[in-house]
């Protein structure tokens, strides 16, 4: 058994003249909760479509559970569950009927299906509404049912594409809990979202895609280092030699003079603050304001992908 459940090697895909993926390479380990980020049109959905068997790549290779995966391989398709960006349940079927239907499509039946359906509908908080039609559900309930349907067959790899779009905070928290629980039970999850804080909170490792390529793929900690913390010190007048004194402070990696003060770049803000206060006092500098700009995934994301609007 390979350590990776999924390996994408130089995967390429075109739609006519448009290039969706231009050589994507990444791997996801078994049991990992992996984040996939990227602006609109970055190629995330195309990559997930290829991994879920909806599309075949034009080039490169996808290994699923260590085996080459193409759309025609029905057995490998069983390993994947998809939580689609758009809801994908039948509004005219009840919650139970939806779960049963997709369970049967994946070969489940009898007591196993009944038991699994009960477990999942209970987990997503819909057991008491199991016999109600999905069309009568709120957006959050539909999202939760969508998740239950995606994992009814206990896939090894769960692809979640924007699973919390348009849901209330309560449903979002429940979805997070379920995703964490499934992951804890051994299910590998690839999670894509535009909500950076969600990904940062859930996923220890993240890939960032842009323009059909993976531009970064690392742990959260390492990614955050790509955009370090900043501390802005506003002063009315910067005395001569003050900048050099700041550069000597432990942890300060850069100092930049601004019209209304200086900006310090540092790996860690906590230990720096007391030392900075002492230096200001001894140098006779009276700061009018301190502003901190902590490193976040969003800053890293914007730093890597730029501020240009995407279609």
């Amino acid at each position, binding site marked *: 058994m390979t350590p990776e459940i999924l390996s994408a090697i130089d995967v390429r895909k075109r739609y006519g003249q448009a290039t969706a993926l231009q050589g994507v390479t990444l791997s996801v380990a078994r049991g990992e909760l992996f984040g996939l980020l990227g602006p609109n049109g970055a190629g995330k959905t195309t990559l997930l479509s290829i991994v*879920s*068997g*909806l599309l075949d790549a034009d080039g490169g290779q996808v290994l699923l559970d260590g085996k080459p995966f193409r759309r025609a391989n*029905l*057995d490998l*398709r*069983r390993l*994947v569950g*998809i939580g*689609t960006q*758009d*809801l*994908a*349940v*039948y*509004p*005219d*079927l009840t919650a139970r*009927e939806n779960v049963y*239907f*997709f369970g*049967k*499509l*994946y*070969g489940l039946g009898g007591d196993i299906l009944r038991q699994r359906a009960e477990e999942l509908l209970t987990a997503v908080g819909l057991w008491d509404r199991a016999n109600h039609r999905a069309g009568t559900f709120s957006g959050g309930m539909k999202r939760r049912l969508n998740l239950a*349907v995606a994992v009814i067959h206990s896939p090894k790899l769960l692809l979640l594409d924007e699973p919390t779009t348009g849901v209330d905070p309560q449903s979002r928290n429940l979805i997070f809990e379920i995703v964490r629980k499934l992951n804890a039970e051994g299910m590998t999850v690839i999670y894509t979202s535009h909500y950076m804080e969600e990904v940062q909170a859930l996923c220890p490792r993240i890939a960032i895609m842009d323009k059909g390529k993976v531009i970064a793929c690392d742990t959260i900690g390492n990614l955050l280092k790509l955009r370090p913390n900043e501390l802005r010190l506003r002063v009315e007048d910067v005395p001569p030699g003050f900048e050099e004194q700041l550069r000597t402070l432990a942890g300060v990696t850069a100092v930049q003079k601004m019209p209304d003060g200086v900006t310090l770049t540092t790996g860690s803000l906590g230990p720096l603050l007391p030392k900075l206060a002492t230096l200001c006092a001894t140098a006779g500098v009276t700061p009018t304001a301190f502003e901190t700009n902590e490193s976040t995934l969003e800053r890293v994301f914007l730093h890597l992908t730029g501020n240009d609007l995407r279609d």
Partner: protein
Amino acid sequence: MRPILTLAGKDFRLMLRDPRAGVILLLMPVLLVFILGITVGGAFDPNKKEQLRISVLNLDAGLPPDAGPFPGRPWSEVLLEDFANTADIRVELIPDRQRAEELVRSGERAVVIVLEPEFSSHLQRSSFVGEPLKKNPINPLYRDGIQLSKLGVTVVRDPTQEVAAAVVEQVVQVALMRVVIPWMIGQAFEMIGTPPFMDKMKNYVPSLHLLPGDLLKSIGDAMQKGISGFFVDYDFRGKTWAKLTKSEPPPTKAANTNAYRSDGSGAIRRGAVRYQALVPSYTVTFAFFLVLVMGWLFAAERRHGTIVRLNAAPIARWQLLLGKLIPCFAVSLLQGFGLLIAGWLIFGMPLGTRPELLIPVVICTSLAATGLAMLVAAVAKTEQQVSVNGTLLVMVLAGLSGSLMPRYLMPEEMRALTRVTPHAWSLDAYAQLLTNPDPQTAIVWTACAVLCGFGGIFLLIAWWRMSVEK
């Protein structure tokens, strides 16, 4: 097989929960057939000709044993033949008196002519001459024509349809005169010159008593010949109207005599024959409305996003298509058989002499409809597109095929054009089975083969279209 049944079961459930399918596929055609049947249904009767219908209940017991050589058959046959051979008249034979009275009472017939059991014997006794030259003679003639009661003819009349009844009665009078008068004239003229006649003449010309028997016979024969020679355009001994007037007998038109066919045995007792055209027309038209139901199912899969799940599931594309196709095909079969049974039960539509052959026709029509439905589902992306394009397609095909109006109303070249539609082939088969008493099975099987061909081609194009889309 299991995924196919799972898919089919799900679509069945969805269709059952969508009232649109039931309304379009079952309720609308029944409603339209009902309304058109009541309003203009008669125009859809392919056998309908502009003929005056004479409804006759024939109870005639036939000629008495001593009737003599003429006419050699019951007088009722002679009269019915005269009716049938008359242009623009058709005879309908009612089976029994109860039915005759019901038909008149319900207003379905303005009048029924009853030839009573004594009809032949009374007509046989009709004569210009009395006893002793004719035994028990009857003189049926009077000022207005023939006294029907004297001949054993009863007229069962609907008092609310006096005019229609009067027209039929006049036709009956004329026909009876054509039968009775030559018979009476013939008997009378055959008698001229015969010994009984000459004996009677002796009462008026006493000198005849003096003549020997040979001479008396010669005079009698001469009288016969003299009359014939004097009225050269007539044969007074002919006993039939054609012979009396020395004209060609009319061509025999046996087809103008039909047994009564119930046109009201169903729940709606109205014109069952028209439903033999209306029911198949609308069964075929609405069979192809399956394109809407199936198109909506496919479009709904796209709209609800479930098509993504289905495509990602471990099922092959052919399984997916078969899973969609089976419930639609089953619904189409249900619709086809359902409408025929409704036609039979509700409208009293006769199912023809080979009802078992309706089964392959319904199956093949459903196959063609399912194929077209799959094609529309493969092309149309949204429910709106399905509704607009599907309805347009179905109505154009129905119009072209002659489903919406009888094909015999179409110009010749348009009738040929109908063959490009599956509807026309289906209608051909139905027409054979429902309206032809001796259906041409070759036509039925050819139609079935063509319908299967249509279905297969539609399915292949749909499969290709879906592959391209993929």
